[in-house]
């Protein structure tokens, strides 16, 4: 009887632990807003819009400095 009670208590404990684990994982799995480049999160993701520099939705931040241009190989057709 006592053994039965112990087994039951252990089973209950494991079950509740699993519940807690699930709750913790669910909380951890919910995305939190982070600063990322536009390509990493969909633009309409709640809180997923890039909040770093250059983000129009965060006008308090000055836009980041633009890097030097990346050259495209090709034959120009400018007026010359």
């Amino acid at each position: 009887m006592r053994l039965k009670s112990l087994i039951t208590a252990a089973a209950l404990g494991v079950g509740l632990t699993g519940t807690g684990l699930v709750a913790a994982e669910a909380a951890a799995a919910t995305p939190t807003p982070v600063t990322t480049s536009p390509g990493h999160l969909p633009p309409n993701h709640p809180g997923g819009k890039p909040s770093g520099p250059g983000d129009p939705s965060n006008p308090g931040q000055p836009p980041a400095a633009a890097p030097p241009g990346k050259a495209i190989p090709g034959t120009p057709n400018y007026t010359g």
Partner: protein
Amino acid sequence: MRQIKVHTGAVLAAGLIAGLAGCGSSSGGDSGNGPPKTDRPTAAAARQRQGGAEIATVRGSRIAVHKQKGDGAAWKTLSSPNEMGATRVFLVDVRDGGWLKVLLPIRPNGSTGWVKASDVTLSSTTRRVEIDPKAFSFTVFDGDKVLRTGKVATGEGGTPTPPGRFYFTELVRPPDPDGAYGAYAFGLSGFSPTLKTFAGGPGQLAVHGTNKASALGGKASHGCVRVSNDDITWMAENLAIGTPVVVTK
């Protein structure tokens, strides 16, 4: 042990709620939830004094351009990449809430339109190029500081280089650095006032290198601004797409 795990979950949940609340207060900046509006003109004025500029890079494969901000229907739709295969960028003229007034790379030179701020990513530059056709020279500034200066060739009489405010739309590396376009060519947002087409293109202006360095310092081109290959290579390594270029009168 169970209590610790639940507590952790509660802490994470509380942190998530706090984080989302903070994000919510900042993500609606353009709708009035961002920094106080009194801060925005100050920041913009500071950038203007420093000669800074904002560059808008198109997100996605096309962007709607409007005649007026807030217009429902688009006036034009521009693709990205652009006709030269580069990600489409604009030089920002004015920021107004969730809208940007931008210089457009279309005729007539100096055309502007409005785009939604949410359709672009903003970056900045404190550098600009000034072309003096009378002195046949260029100067690259970083704020008030002169970074580089050199000789240019501008358009001949029938194919002048027009004055105006432009910006670099793309950077192209020609297959032959010893060819007519030199080592590199920066496309400009402006067009020849006299050539509607050239070499299969729409008469677009550029700042590019040259294989005729002896012609620098005079009128020799079909409208483009030619610089030495050393100068265009330096520009390619130091200037962003979207950098403002002013051709003085």
